[in-house]
């Protein structure tokens, strides 16, 4: 009964979203306020019924209703309740339902939070969101309904959730990632609404900015969590594999980052408008492309599910309609857009243009590397794969260039700046960065490559520039330092924090790439192995039975410079329901290094294959991601967005009165 209720609620949500995608749009076109005013209640209704459907599916999981085919495929009575709950988005159907729920949630948020928007803009934005929701609801209902029954032969026991996904990482990673992916639909909807109404101005950029920042922050967090999860769960100790599905999430992130910066220029200076719109369209299109790549099963990847071609075809159609329709509209309207000001060659506008060009270049190369194998396969020219060296060869130098310009751009003035004065301002920090970078690497043992130096020096460069910029701003006034620090706007701190995140991330990448130590060994009980300053002693493995698995737990005693330091217990688990073997690594995390021990397979006479790793600064990768996330959220919650829109509203009212 409950699952049927879920389907029914989805059908109702579909009906409402069809209304949402038509009535307010027509109303906005004709200037009919009554019709526009339907947008808000309809958005609430769509969210309400989607949420009911999601709750129904969650209930089916918690109640172990194996007559529902999706539950039978992805759950099991032996599964703890919290994994049964996260199993809701552990497979294709449920994760699409989560996607639709997230979309409805963003629509609801826009409906509730944007009371200050002009009615016709709000109607159009919600209308566009409604169109997207309609497309995805149709997709769920016709190709991937999670509520299909296995009747009358319903199994007594479920097939269990993929053990890889029985983890805290799976509980949080997909919802965060989807919040980001789907969040770009808001930026997209704002862009389309602006094109439709022909009002591409600074106000549009200001409305769109906080939404874009929040979506970008969630996507950053989602990718960071994914990297962290892969690190400890897959048992290889890697944090980025240039896997096609990772690339699928990186591409919208790159374009989204460009969009966040380009929106800043559009809001402050009224230039780059048509470029910003194009970026908004592409950020969302790449999110859809990512969904297509993951869900259609065309890729070889850890994320690939057994998939059916009908689904891939459906998403491909959605993708083509979105890109085709929005680019068509863009072609019709973009020529009317005029820049409101000009800028000279040395100015912050130019620096942000460089940022946009570089980010787009990285995105393009990633796109090429991801799609090329598919293209070659489709043309029947053989099966190929593109290796990580390709991606590294391009993204590393372009990324370094990006950091170099980041340091310059953040202190350059809008509109015009004296080039020689700027150069003078930059020389001292640059020298300091080089000295600090070279010294800190010289003092460390081990071989550094050129790129290690580049990464560390550029990280110091960003740090020095941030400090000098903040101190410049504080010293400009004669009031006490603390009062001046308080006076700096929240969005400024957000920017500095996110940029500091870039520096931290760069240190992480440079250090872990250069100084990572890995040993794959055959260890019998009593064997010892030295890795860096640490000595590992293998004491053998014992058997252990968990709730839905049986496992072998190895014990390794760790000594630091001869002193007892830690006991690490990596595990090898056999999940009985599916017969799947899983590695549970043992970690000793630290701010400056991780010890990482993974158990391979058992060999004869109690010996095991064991992987020992020493990973310096690996935590900095995710720390950088977190800093960027918080920076984005700080910038989005700057009070000035609310104040300014209220001011405009009152201006409008006095003008009308």
């Amino acid at each position, binding site marked *: 009964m409950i699952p049927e209720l879920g389907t029914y609620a989805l059908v109702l949500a579909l009906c409402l979203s069809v209304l949402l995608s038509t009535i307010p749009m027509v109303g906005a076109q004709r200037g009919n306020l009554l019709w526009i005013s339907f947008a808000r209640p309809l958005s609430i209704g769509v969210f309400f019924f989607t949420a009911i459907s999601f709750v129904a599916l969650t209930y089916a999981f918690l109640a172990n209703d194996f007559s529902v*085919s999706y539950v*039978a*495929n992805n759950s099991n009575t032996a599964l703890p309740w919290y994994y049964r709950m996260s199993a809701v988005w552990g497979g294709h159907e449920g994760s699409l339902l989560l996607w639709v729920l997230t979309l409805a949630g963003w629509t609801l948020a826009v409906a509730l939070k944007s009371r200050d928007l002009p009615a016709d803009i709000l109607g159009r934005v919600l209308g566009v969101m409604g169109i997207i929701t309609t497309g995805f609801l149709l997709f769920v209902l016709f190709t991937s309904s999670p509520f299909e029954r*296995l009747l009358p032969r319903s*199994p007594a026991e479920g*097939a269990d959730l*993929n053990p*890889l996904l029985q983890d805290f990482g799976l509980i949080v990673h997909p919802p965060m990632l989807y919040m980001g992916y789907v969040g770009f639909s808001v930026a997209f909807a704002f862009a389309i609404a602006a094109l439709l109404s022909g009002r591409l101005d600074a106000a549009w950029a200001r409305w769109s900015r906080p939404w874009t920042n929040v979506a970008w922050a969630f996507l950053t967090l989602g990718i960071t969590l994914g990297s962290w999860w892969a690190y400890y769960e897959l*048992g290889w100790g890697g944090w980025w594999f240039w896997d096609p599905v990772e690339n699928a999430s990186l591409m919208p992130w790159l374009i989204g980052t460009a969009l966040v910066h380009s929106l800043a220029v559009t809001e402050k200076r009224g230039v780059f408008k048509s470029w910003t719109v194009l970026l908004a369209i592409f950020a969302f299109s790449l999110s859809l492309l990512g969904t297509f790549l993951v869900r259609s*099963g*065309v890729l*070889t990847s*850890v994320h*690939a*599910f*057994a998939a059916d071609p009908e689904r891939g075809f459906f998403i491909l159609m959605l993708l083509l309609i979105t890109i085709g329709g929005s680019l068509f509209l863009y072609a019709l309207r973009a020529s009317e857009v005029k820049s409101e000001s*000009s800028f*000279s*060659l040395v100015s912050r506008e*130019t620096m942000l*243009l460089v940022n946009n*060009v570089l980010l787009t*270049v990285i995105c*393009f*190369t990633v796109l*090429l*590397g991801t799609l*090329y194998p598919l293209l070659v396969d489709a043309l029947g020219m*053989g*099966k*190929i*794969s*593109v*290796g990580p*060296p*390709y991606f590294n*060869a*391009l993204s590393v130098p*372009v990324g370094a260039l990006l950091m170099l310009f980041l340091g310059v751009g953040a202190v350059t003035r809008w509109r015009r700046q004296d080039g020689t004065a700027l150069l003078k301002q930059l020389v001292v920090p640059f020298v300091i960065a080089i000295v600090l970078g070279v010294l800190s690497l010289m003092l460390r043992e081990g071989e550094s490559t050129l790129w290690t130096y580049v990464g560390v020096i550029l990280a110091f460069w960003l740090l020095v520039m941030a400090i000098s910029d903040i101190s410049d701003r504080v010293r400009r006034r004669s009031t006490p330092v603390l009062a001046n620090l308080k006076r700096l706007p929240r969005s400024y701190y957000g920017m500095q924090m996110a940029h500091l995140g870039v520096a931290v991330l760069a240190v992480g990448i440079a250090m872990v790439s250069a100084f990572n130590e890995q040993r*794959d*060994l*055959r260890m019998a009980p009593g064997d010892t192995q030295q890795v860096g300053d640490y000595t590992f002693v293998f004491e053998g493995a014992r058997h252990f039975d968990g709730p839905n698995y049986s496992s072998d737990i190895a014990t390794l005693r760790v000594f630091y410079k001869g002193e007892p330091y830690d006991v690490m217990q990596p595990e090898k688990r056999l999940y009985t329901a*599916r*017969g*799947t*073997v*899983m*590695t549970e690594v043992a970690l000793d995390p630290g701010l400056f290094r991780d010890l990482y021990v*993974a158990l*391979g*397979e058992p*060999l*004869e006479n109690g010996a095991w*294959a064991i*992987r020992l790793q020493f990973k310096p600064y690996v935590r900095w990768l995710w720390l950088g991601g977190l800093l960027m996330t918080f920076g984005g959220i700080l910038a989005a919650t700057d009070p000035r967005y609310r104040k300014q829109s209220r001011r405009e509203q009152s201006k409008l009212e006095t003008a009308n009165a």
Partner: protein
Amino acid sequence: MNPKRKKRLLIVLFILSGAGVAVGLTLYALSQNINLFFSPTQIAQGEAPVGTRIRAGGMVVEGSVNRDNKSLRVEFEVTDFQNSVPIVYSGILPDLFREGQGIVAQGELDASGKLQAVEVLAKHDENYMPPEVAEALEKAGKMPKPSGQEFNK
């Protein structure tokens, strides 16, 4: 040419040359890092190059896994049920590596026709088959029926 136009021209030239360099580097890097996939039959017929990084895959032959008892060196064969290829690998095999399981190995063919693998991939879903392997098996007409079809339609 007035200064404004000159400035624009400079910006456009900057973008164009940047894009040109990027495209050139991209294509070069791409051509250096493509790994072609070969099925065991293709390798047996001598279609695969020797000493070049390639990918090969198929089902692990039952009873072919042979471990060295002093190191982590392991030898096994993969097959598309027409021909098979011996693979040598030194290191930790993935969790889902088993006899009868579809895998993909990446490495170079040596002069004796063995694939010296640097990476062995097995996927983390027991009913999932790497698309390359599935196609190779289909070509050989030996695609096995997946078990538990009830749960995976």
